[in-house]
């Protein structure tokens, strides 16, 4: 039971972390609340389905193709749709909701609303102290961890990472250091959507595809970000695992807990907003001119 909770918490926590960090990145750098973030995740999942099930592409090349296509799509959406309204918060919010729904409708058109699935990349499982651990779960966890470490190295060790951190703190001063805001925002959007696409691609064998599959992770991701503090990457990371483990606890410890799973994120979000609206690591944003 304990091990069940740990495995399940680690895996869902890692997925939530990937989604929430991507969402926080573009918010931090460009103050864009991208509601369509998990819709890109959904598109990536469908890409994997399409390439592996309909075109007969191998799972690894399919994954690369999915990430590249979705990232490209994200950049186009950003350049022609989000960037022109970037300074207008309400417009960004409404615009990205519209974008998400548009993507959902397109997927409905192409793939209908049927539930689809993709087989595991790795079949089989092993037992650890009586708990079934599927190889696919292990693979997913390993891949997510690798990407998180790579992202951390990018942020701390590269020139782009430095620019991203500067812009997340003070866009104007970043500009005064010679950082091209537009270009860094664009690059960050690419990374952000790329992370969503990667999440979609690795999660697809563990989940069921349908065009509405972006909504549940959107709510979870929002809860993580509220819990961790909007704009804080550290907060997103820690918040994601807190949420992952809480979900696992509810599912395994409460009788019929699986039915309550969906309400965990919402309850946490409401609790945080009442008790500590700025979240665990929230930064009070200084008024920028």
């Amino acid at each position, binding site marked *: 039971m304990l091990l069940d909770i740990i495995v399940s918490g680690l895996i869902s926590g890692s997925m939530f972390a990937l989604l929430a960090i991507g969402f926080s990145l573009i918010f931090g750098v460009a103050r864009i609340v991208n509601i369509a973030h998990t819709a890109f995740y959904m598109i990536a999942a469908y890409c994997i389905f399409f390439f592996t099930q309909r075109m007969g592409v191998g799972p690894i090349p399919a994954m690369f193709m999915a990430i590249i296509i979705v990232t490209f799509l994200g950049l186009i959406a950003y350049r022609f749709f989000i960037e022109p309204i970037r300074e*207008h918060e309400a417009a960004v919010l409404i615009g990205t909701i519209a974008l998400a729904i548009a993507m959902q409708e397109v997927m409905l058109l192409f793939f209908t609303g049927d539930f689809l699935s993709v087989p595991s990349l790795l079949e089989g499982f092993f037992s650890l102290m009586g708990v079934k651990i599927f190889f696919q779960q292990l693979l997913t966890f390993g891949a997510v961890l690798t990407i998180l470490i790579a992202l951390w190295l990018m942020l701390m060790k590269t020139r782009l990472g430095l620019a991203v951190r*500067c812009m997340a703190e*003070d866009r104007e001063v*970043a500009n*005064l250091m010679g950082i*091209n*805001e537009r270009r860094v925002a664009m690059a960050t959007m690419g990374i952000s959507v790329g992370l969503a696409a990667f999440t979609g691609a690795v999660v697809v064998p563990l989940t069921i595809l349908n065009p509405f599959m972006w909504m549940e992770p959107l709510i979870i991701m929002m809860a993580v970000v509220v819990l961790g503090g909007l704009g804080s990457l550290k907060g997103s990371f820690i918040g994601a695992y807190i949420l992952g483990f809480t979900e696992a606890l509810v599912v395994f410890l409460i009788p019929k807990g699986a039915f309550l799973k969906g309400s965990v994120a919402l309850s946490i979000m409401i609790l945080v907003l009442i008790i500590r609206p700025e979240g665990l690591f929230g930064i009070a944003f200084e008024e920028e001119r």
Partner: protein
Amino acid sequence: MLLDVEHLNVFYDKAMLLNDINMGVDTGELVSLVGPNGAGKSTLLRAVTGLVARDREISKRSTGGDVVLQGLIRFENIQIQNIHAHEIVKMGLVHCPERRRPFREMTVRDNLLAGAYLIKDRDKTMSNLAKVYDLFPVLKGRGSQISGTLSGGEQQMLAIGRALMTEPRLLCIDEPSTGLAPILRAEVFEKISEVSRLGITVLLVEQEVGAVFAMSSRNYVLSSGRIIAEGTGEKLLKDEVIRKTYLGL
């Protein structure tokens, strides 16, 4: 002239913040800009380094009020009034902003490296870093400290150090002494004259008239968006009206 400002007007939301500004800075000078609160000193620096143009661009794309910039700003005879702030830095015109504004969550070293963002030559950056640490020994050995935990004086040194890392030809510094104890103010001013002696041209905005007039080659007095006097400290201090009305002495 290294910097030339001609007939510059700036409006924010119909309010005229700068009114027909004509001024300039020559290579090697240390020029100060003084005047009461709200005179428009920061706005003038912001106009020169591209931040007013940036505000104008943002306001165009949001519901914010209108920002208008009229007139000519030239740096080394190139018109820069419509150039992006990040391009202006590339030319060597650098702004050390009001309230210091370090990247508070980043380390001292990363703050300084942010200043070197445009300098791709790693060796040059490292030698500049060593020079900055030499100029500001308080920062030495604290490269890994989070800059938000530095004292006010140290943060000011960091802000100036960060600006120096961009290799400026003209460094604009906005009110570096604000909020500091008298000893620290003297130290900050000493560092600024040292920067000037290193051959970097400085445009300094300050309220601390006494200290600034002693080190500057020329001064402008700004009030309600207009330049109302110009000259050496000696000359300005002799003028009874300017002393009483604008400098509060």
